[in-house]
C-alpha cells in the first residue's frame, strides 16, 4: 500500500453474544488458571518448583477470551509467561503443574519447564524464553497453515517488552508482505520485567507497531473477557478470511512481579491497588451476578470445583515420577521417518 491509502480498521466480530453457561465456563477457566498459579507460587516458595516461574495472575482474561474466539485448528505460539495460555488452549492443569515440578508426566516430560510448555494435541506450540524470538515462528506457522490449507490461524502472544526486538518487527514485515493468517496479540501488562511501558517506549500503544508495515491494528482494554473474545474474534475472522494478519494490543496488568523472585518495588504507590479494581475475575463475577443472576451458591460450588481441580494437579505433580535418566539423549535428534 502507499501512504495515501486509508488504514483499514477491524470490524466487530460475528460471534454471537455470550450466554449464561458460556460466561460461567470462561469465569471457571480464568479462576482455574488463577488457582493453579497461586498453588504454583506456593510450591515455588517450598522449592518444589525451581528455576524461573513467571506468573500470569491478573491477565487471565486475555488468554481465556482469546481461546473463546478461536477454533481447535488455530495454533498458538507464545512467550515465557505462558501458563495461562497453555491452559486456555487445552493443556491440563495436571500436565502443566507436573512440568513445573520437572516430572516425567509434564507436558514436556520435564525437559521444558515453566517456559517451554508444548502440546500438539491442542495445537499449543510452545512457550519461548528469548523475548520476541518466537514472533517469526508464528509467521512461519501461519505460512504452513496457509500452504496446507488447514483453515487454521496462528495466534502469537507476546509482551510489551518483546515489541522492541528486531525479530518481532521482521515478523510483522514478513506476515504483512505474504498476507499470512496470523494474529499478533501484544499483552501490554505495563512492565517489561521492571521497566514500565513509559520508560521503555516513546509510543505506549504497541499495536501502532503495525502501522509502519500496513497492518490492521487495534488497542483495546482487555480486563473484560467478553471484550477480549469479541476483539480477538474479529481479528481471527479477518485473518481466516484471507485478508492477512492483524496486530492487537490487549491492555492488561500483571499483579505479581516479573518472576517469583521479584517483589516489584518499582511500581508507583497505589498503582497495584487501583488496577486490582479491574481484576478480570471481579468484572466477570459482577456480570454473572448482575446480568445472569448467578447465585452465591452457584459460585461457591464453582469455586470448590476449581479448588479441587487445582489441588488435584498439585497432588498429581507431587506423586509423579522424575524423568528417567536413561532417556537423557532421547530427543536430541528425531529418528528419520518417525
Amino acid at each position: 500500500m502507499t501512504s495515501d491509502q486509508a488504514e483499514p480498521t477491524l470490524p466487530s466480530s460475528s460471534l454471537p453474544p455470550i450466554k449464561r453457561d458460556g460466561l460461567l465456563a470462561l469465569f471457571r477457566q480464568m479462576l482455574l488458571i488463577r488457582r493453579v498459579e497461586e498453588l504454583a507460587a506456593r510450591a515455588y516458595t517450598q522449592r518444589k518448583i525451581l528455576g524461573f516461574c513467571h506468573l500470569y495472575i491478573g491477565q487471565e482474561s486475555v488468554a481465556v477470551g482469546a481461546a473463546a474466539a478461536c477454533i481447535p485448528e488455530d495454533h498458538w505460539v507464545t512467550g515465557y509467561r505462558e501458563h495461562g495460555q497453555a491452559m486456555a488452549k487445552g493443556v491440563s492443569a495436571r500436565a502443566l503443574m507436573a512440568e513445573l515440578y520437572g516430572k516425567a508426566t509434564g507436558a514436556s516430560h520435564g525437559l521444558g519447564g515453566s517456559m517451554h510448555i508444548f502440546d500438539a494435541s491442542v495445537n499449543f506450540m510452545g512457550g519461548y524464553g528469548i523475548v520476541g524470538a518466537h514472533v517469526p515462528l508464528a509467521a512461519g506457522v501461519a505460512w504452513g497453515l496457509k500452504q496446507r490449507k488447514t483453515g487454521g490461524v496462528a495466534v502469537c502472544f507476546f509482551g510489551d517488552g518483546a515489541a522492541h526486538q528486531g525479530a518481532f518487527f521482521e515478523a510483522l514485515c514478513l506476515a504483512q508482505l505474504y498476507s499470512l493468517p496470523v494474529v499478533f496479540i501484544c499483552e501490554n501488562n505495563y512492565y517489561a520485567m521492571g521497566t514500565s511501558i513509559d520508560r521503555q517506549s516513546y509510543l505506549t500503544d504497541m499495536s501502532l507497531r503495525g502501522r509502519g508495515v500496513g497492518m490492521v491494528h487495534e488497542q483495546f482494554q482487555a480486563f473484560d473477557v467478553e471484550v477480549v473474545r469479541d476483539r480477538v474474534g474479529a481479528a481471527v475472522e479477518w485473518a481466516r478470511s484471507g485478508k492477512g494478519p492483524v496486530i492487537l494490543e490487549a491492555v492488561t496488568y500483571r499483579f505479581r512481579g516479573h518472576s517469583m523472585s521479584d517483589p516489584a518495588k518499582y511500581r508507583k504507590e497505589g498503582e497495584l491497588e487501583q488496577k486490582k479494581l479491574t481484576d478480570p475475575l471481579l468484572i466477570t463475577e459482577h456480570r454473572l451476578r448482575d446480568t445472569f443472576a448467578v447465585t452465591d451458591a452457584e459460585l461457591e460450588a464453582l469455586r470448590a470445583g476449581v479448588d479441587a481441580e487445582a489441588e488435584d494437579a498439585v497432588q498429581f505433580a507431587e506423586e509423579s515420577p522424575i524423568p528417567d535418566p536413561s532417556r537423557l539423549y532421547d530427543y536430541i535428534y528425531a529418528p528419520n521417518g518417525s
Partner: protein
Amino acid sequence: MPLIQMREALRQAMSEEMRRDPNVFLMGEEVAYYDGAYKVSQGMLAEFGPDRVVDTPISENGFAGLGVGAAMAGMRPIIEFMTWNFSLVAYDQIINSAARIYQMSAGTYKMPMVFRGANGHAENLGSQHSTAVDSLYAHFPGLKVVSPSTPYDAKGLLKSAIRDDNPVIFLESELMYGFKGEVPEEEYLIPIGKADIKRDGTDLVIVCWGKHVHTCLRAAEELAKQGISALVLDLRTIRPLDHEALFAAVAKTHRVVVVQEGFPYAGVGAEIIARIQESCFDLLDGPIVRVTNRDVPQPYATNLEKLVIITAERVIDAALTVVGRK
C-alpha cells in the same frame, strides 16, 4: 555420466525433492526472480511458482524464524542464506529455536528443515564476507552440519538433508559453485554422517571437508611426487562425525593432519584431534598437526589474504612435519 557444475547439482537436488514432496519450499534473498545470487536456483521459480520459490526482504532473523515455524506446521523449508556470514543475524533462530525445539518439547515438534548457502572465504571479500561458520554450528547438539566437496556429494547429501527430520546446516562455497563433476542421471542419496576416502594412502591421513578437500588433494599429489602416500579423508558431515571412518584411517596411517577452514581457537579441528587422542592415542606415531586459517580476521589485500587462508603449500608443510621429513 553428465558433467555438471556444483550449482546445477544443488539445483537438481532441490528440484527433485520439491517435485517429490509438496511441503518442500525454498525461501531466501534473491532466490526467485533474480535466480539466486549465485544462480543456484536458476529456473526454479518458473517451475514451482512464487509460493514455493520465495523471495524475502533482507531480514535473515525473520525468515529463518519463519522457516522454523513452517517446519513445526508440517512444511520442509529450505532456507537459503546468500552467504553464511548473514546467518549470524539469524543465529538466535538457528540455535535457540531450530536446534532446541525438538528436545525442549520432548519430541512433540520435529524440525525438518535445511539452512544452506555459501560458506567461508572466496576472493577479496574482506572481513565481514569471509567467515567460515563450521565451528559455530557444529558446537550445538540438535543440528547436523554437512559440507560437501563435489557435485556428486552435494546432490546426494542435499537430498538427504531435505528428507531429514532434523535441522541441517548445509555449507557450500562460492568458489565451488562452478566446480564440475560427474553426477548420474538416476536418483541417488548419500547418507548424512558418512565420510568418504577421496584418495587412498598409507603414510598419513589428511582429514578435511568442503572446498579444502581439493586443496588437500593437490597437496597429496605433490606429496606423492616426494614418495609420501597421503590418505585424503573427506568427512562430508561435520556433525554427526563418522568416528568409524576417522579412526580406521588413523589405524591405517598412524599420522594425522587436520585441515579446517576458519580460526583455530575452539574449532572443529580441535574437536577432531581431541576425539582421536581420546579414542586411539596408542595408534598415533606422533603429534597431530592442524592447518587452519591464521588467527586474524580476513584482510582485503590479495597478498595478505593469501597469508591467512589454507593453501596446498601449508598442507604439504604439515604433512612433512607429521611424517618426520621436516
